[in-house]
């Protein structure tokens, strides 16, 4: 399983890989928002947690269709399915690799970008924590969506339509935790629910992903 993770990370970093794609999209969106909204720091500071969360969600969405499509095209997905590695484990590792190449860099970059949106000083910590807890769920749900659309040509649009509604709870609780942090309220309730969503997706979706892949590989 570690071999699959290392291979995916290596592929993402090499030329033509997905590493940096989500991160640069995130940077661009967050840098553009103050130009669009105007230089009112009070307004920016109020919408900053939401903007950062929506931007990271869309950035994660950007590279989802690569998770299985490339392996499907060159035949390695079918070979993986016949290998001793359980497909559930492969699905888990694929999601983990996607998170390390997308969610983790976003989480690390978010506080720096929060400065551009004049994020409230109290919110930095909770923004970081909420992204750290929430973005793995984005990768796991996205992996499931990628498995659903793996055999389709131009499945990217369908993938977005399928996955975005499933992202809503993560977005709500993630942005809520960061917002409560910035308002000086107790964000623990939202963080616990966010953690619950992430734990739930990682417990259930590898199995759903593997079952979906088996159907799509027929």
């Amino acid at each position, binding site marked *: 399983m570690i071999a*699959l993770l290392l291979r995916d990370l290596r*592929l993402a970093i090499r030329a033509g890989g997905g590493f940096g794609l989500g991160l640069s999209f995130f940077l661009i969106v967050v840098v553009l928002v103050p130009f669009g909204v105007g230089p009112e720091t009070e307004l920016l500071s109020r919408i900053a947690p939401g903007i950062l969360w929506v931007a990271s969600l869309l950035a994660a969405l950007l590279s989802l269709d690569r998770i299985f499509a490339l392996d499907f095209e060159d*035949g*390695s997905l079918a*070979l993986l399915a016949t*290998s001793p590695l359980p497909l559930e484990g492969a699905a888990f590792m694929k999601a983990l690799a996607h998170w390390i190449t997308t969610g983790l860099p976003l989480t690390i970059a978010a506080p720096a970008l929060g400065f551009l949106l004049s994020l409230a000083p109290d919110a930095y910590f909770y923004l970081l924590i909420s992204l750290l807890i929430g973005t793995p769920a984005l990768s796991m749900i996205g992996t499931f969506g990628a498995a659903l659309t793996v055999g389709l040509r131009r499945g990217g649009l369908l993938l977005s339509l399928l996955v975005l509604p499933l992202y809503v709870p993560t977005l709500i609780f993630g942005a809520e935790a960061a917002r409560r942090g910035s308002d000086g309220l107790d964000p623990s309730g939202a963080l616990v629910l966010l953690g619950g969503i992430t734990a739930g997706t990682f417990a259930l979706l590898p199995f759903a992903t593997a079952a979906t892949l088996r159907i799509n590989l027929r």
Partner: protein
Amino acid sequence: MNVCPKLEVFDNRQRGFDPIRVARIGTFIFWVVDVTGNRGLQPAIAGDINYPEDEGAYASHADGIKTALTVIENLKFWADIHGTSLPDTVLDTFDLADLKNRLGGTLSAGQKRRLGLARLGVIGRKVLFLDEPTVSLDGFSVKLFADWLQNTHLASGGIAVIATHIDLGLDAPELDLSPFRSAPEATGGTDEAFL
């Protein structure tokens, strides 16, 4: 392991395969590959297929090569996934030693195919299902592959089911599927599987 896996694929032919499936060699082999190689990804249409779990492997037209990984990284990956180590001889056997640090994307079709077949030498599976393994190989490479099959794979108790258009020169029984070839359509259409 000295146990020779038992394979009953062809016995099932007499017991009522769907004639359409048998008629097209390409589809047939792909079907066999799907049922057996994919550990039940595809339910069997008829009959039973028995061989030890986790002893089957297949190679079809897609070699599963990552273009951004080097030849040796590609092979190492499959060895790790299957929990085997990379045999020292495999690069020489498939004439890949000079290419081992080249990226998969820079290989020619024949070189890619050799790399795809070298995977079979790495993963140590006993039952191989091969759908036209010699496509895009030159005469010398075909001989390399046939030598590996005969002297390494079969000699160590392995078995291989191969769909092929050329004579590999193996000492093995052949199953001629041409009697089951599907009749051309009444309108004169051709069967895609034979194009």
